[in-house]
């Protein structure tokens, strides 16, 4: 079974450790959740895992590949996708164009092919367009397909980000607060989509504050507090744990 | 190169550096609070220079000329803030930067149309350099350097002792502080624009006294001021002054090796190297330059 593992991950600023000896092991086909009070280091962990921040110590291993020295671009190319806490849509591009950018193999991104192999570019574009149409339907964004992404609602932007990362054929996706600022109906939609995708073989690690929605969705739950991994296990068990309640519930 | 030659170049570089220190300080103070490099800095220098020039012609007093220059500089700077920058303060860096280019153009255009392009000079008695064992010391340079040091001292007293100066530095470090702690940002802004304008105005007057006056004179100050501020670390007042003096001395010392033309280019090269090696500047803590 392919795994994502971290060993003794540290991120220190001088004496202060934002991440302290984080060691985890999760299957790349599972649906995992992560909770913790604000400032616990969850988003920082995401940044280190995806390569946007560099750890001061420790290792990250993705399906047998050592990740800790790889750049963010390289990690993404290995099939490690992510979304962001505050959506990073391409605001001056349409929803459709946003999704198209996500596609991995685009001969049209090479200047040489663009000018000398128009046929190949055209064929690849047609294939990408087809996938985009499916994604639009899957995420129910067809109605806004031609709108500029900057004008979408918060929930729609989250869906768009998910769609865009899906276009890049990821094996595993880090979702950073997919439900934040999203209306409850849409939350159900997003959960349903994540579930379907997981059944198709894509694994997830999801940071969230919305405990009920997360509880129903994930197989297991990690709890972080002040840079350390406090607990890990089945959602019901973890949430019932007294230590977890003390750390997390107090400030929620 | 003898030691006397070396000293001559270093001293000249010190004066050149001090001349750039004032606009460099202005650039860094504006960047600290308003978060953009103000491309109109040079033209405020020029405007102040003209103000000082006319004050001198009317009063014959160098002191009043300096004050006149400072006043004109402050007024022009405040006008630019109220008429051009204030409304767009929350916009992107490039918006503010391009607006400042426009402001600079406008100031230069008014100066050009009002006063023409012939070079003007302060009618000051010519002084001869004193020869001190081969080291040449020009009394005018000493006086002007003294003026600049005095102005710098005054500004630093304000920044580090006066409440408004401390607020200015606090806000530059953390812009959100204003909302949290009740520091009245608007008042600090007005003080900042006035002070930077006055500083530029004095720089223009001093520059005019040392060389000549022309509407374009500010532009030749701008890139060196930017370079000095970047080398010292944008937003860091000590850095700006140190960067300017460093730049001036390094440029002068390099002249025997690279010539007059390339000594100017050297400034940009040094700035580039600093940005590549230590992007936050020599005196700043690491932060987001990338």
């Amino acid at each position, binding site marked *: 079974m392919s795994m994502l593992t971290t060993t003794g991950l540290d991120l220190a600023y001088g004496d202060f450790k934002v991440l302290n000896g984080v060691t985890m092991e999760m299957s790349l086909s599972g649906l995992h959740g992560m909770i913790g009070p604000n400032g616990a280091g969850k988003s920082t962990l995401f940044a280190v895992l*995806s390569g*946007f921040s560099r750890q001061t110590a420790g290792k990250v291993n993705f399906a047998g590949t050592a990740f800790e020295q790889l750049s*963010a*671009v390289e990690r993404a190319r290995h099939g490690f*996708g992510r979304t962001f806490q505050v959506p*990073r*849509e*391409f*605001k*001056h*591009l349409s929803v459709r164009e946003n999704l*198209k*950018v*996500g596609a*991995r193999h*685009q*001969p*049209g*991104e*090479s*200047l040489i092919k*663009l000018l000398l192999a128009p046929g190949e*570019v055209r064929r690849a*574009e047609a294939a*990408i367009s087809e996938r985009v149409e499916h994604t639009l339907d899957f995420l129910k964004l067809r109605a806004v397909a031609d709108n500029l992404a*900057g004008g979408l609602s918060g929930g729609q932007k989250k869906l768009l*980000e998910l769609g*865009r990362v899906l276009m*890049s054929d990821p094996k595993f996706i880090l979702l950073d607060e997919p439900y934040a600022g999203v209306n409850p109906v849409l939350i159900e939609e997003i959960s349903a989509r994540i579930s379907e995708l997981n059944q198709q073989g894509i694994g997830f690690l999801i940071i969230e504050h919305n405990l009920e929605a997360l509880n129903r969705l994930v197989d297991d739950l990690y709890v972080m507090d002040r840079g350390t991994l406090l607990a890990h296990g089945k959602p019901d068990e973890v949430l019932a744990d007294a230590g977890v309640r003390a750390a997390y519930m107090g400030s929620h | 190169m003898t030691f006397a030659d070396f000293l001559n170049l270093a001293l000249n570089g010190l004066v050149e550096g001090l001349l750039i220190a004032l606009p460099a300080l202005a650039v860094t103070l504006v*960047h600290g609070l308003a978060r953009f*490099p103000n491309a109109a800095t040079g033209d405020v220098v020029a405007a102040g220079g003209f103000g000082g020039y006319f004050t001198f012609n009317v009063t014959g007093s160098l002191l009043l000329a300096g004050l006149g220059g400072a006043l004109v500089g402050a007024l022009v700077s405040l006008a630019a803030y109220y008429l*051009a920058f204030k409304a*767009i303060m929350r916009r*992107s*860096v*490039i*918006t503010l*930067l*391009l*607006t400042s*280019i*426009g402001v600079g*153009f*406008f100031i230069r*255009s008014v100066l*050009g*149309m009002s006063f023409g*392009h012939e070079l003007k000079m302060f009618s000051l008695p010519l002084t001869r350099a004193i020869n001190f064992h081969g080291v040449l010391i020009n009394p005018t340079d000493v006086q002007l350097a003294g003026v600049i040091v005095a102005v710098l001292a005054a500004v630093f007293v304000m920044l580090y002792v006066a409440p408004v100066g401390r607020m200015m530095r606090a806000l530059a470090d953390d812009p959100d502080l204003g909302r949290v702690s009740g520091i009245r940002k608007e008042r600090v802004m007005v003080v900042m624009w006035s002070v930077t304008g006055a500083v530029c105005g004095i720089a223009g007057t001093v520059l005019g006294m040392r060389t000549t006056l022309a509407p374009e004179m500010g532009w030749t100050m701008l*890139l060196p001021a*930017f*370079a000095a501020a970047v080398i010292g670390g*944008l937003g860091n007042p000590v850095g700006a002054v140190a960067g300017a003096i460093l730049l001036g001395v390094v440029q002068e010392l390099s002249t025997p090796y690279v010539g007059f033309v*390339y000594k100017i*280019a050297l400034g*940009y090269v040094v*700035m*580039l190297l600093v*940005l590549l090696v230590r*992007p936050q500047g020599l005196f700043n803590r690491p932060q987001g330059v*990338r």
Partner: protein
Amino acid sequence: MVSYLATILIIMVIYILLAFSLDLQYGFTGLINFGLVGFFGVGAYTSALVTMNLGLPAWLSFPAAMLVAGLLSWPLGRIALRLRDDYLAIVTLGFSEIIRLVIVKEDWLTHGVQGISGIPRLWPNWSSSASELFLLCALITAAALTTLVMRRITQSPYGRTIQAIRDDEVAVIALGKDPSIFKTQVLVIGGAIAGLAGAFYAHYITYIVPDQFVPITTFYIWMAIIMGGVARLLGSISGAVLLVFLLEGTRFLRGYIPGVTDAGMASFQLGVIGVLLILFMRWRPQGLFGKRSAT
């Protein structure tokens, strides 16, 4: 009259090429290049020197100009990748000034401040007005080809991705694409287009000096793409046309105002451009033909 119109059109199309260069870099990719005039100058000098010192025919000097200007953009690209907007603006400005200083200092090659005179016209055997018309036709052809290339680049997956880089580089990285390759390419292509414009300029004006390549020109072109609308080919073209109308229009006004000198006129133009920059950035940053964006 024909000659006057030809002159206006030549300047206009040269400005269009420069606007394309800048818009590709800033409008489409979000790169703040304040050093445009440097590459314009490199193109002009390369073309002049290749024609005169190497004795090659003029039409060979144009690709040479594009090549040198494009190659010079590459180190700028490497530097640009690591810098934030405000630093990038200052560095690119410094870069174009360094180029100008090198042109001034290396007078064994460039004749320094005295400049290069007697640059041959494109078709030397013809009369000067016929030669000028020929240059205009060649220029329009080159501009039309450049427009086609720009169109192909911008309305394509490549164009999509560079705009994505402009909008959010971090998100592009998270998708497994490396922005630095695109940024470097865009700077090189833009540099080459600016170099092409420079080559035409040199052969049109036949006498070039370093003082013709000062930052004011860079900001005139910035004004043009902002007026016309960034990230649009139509915007670049209309902006350049408007710029020429503005500059020529203010020159006409001079006829009605007595006692205005050349320098006074230049000052007035500078003031008009300055005010327009301020007004456009405040009230209509998307330009005349740009779309009102989401922000």
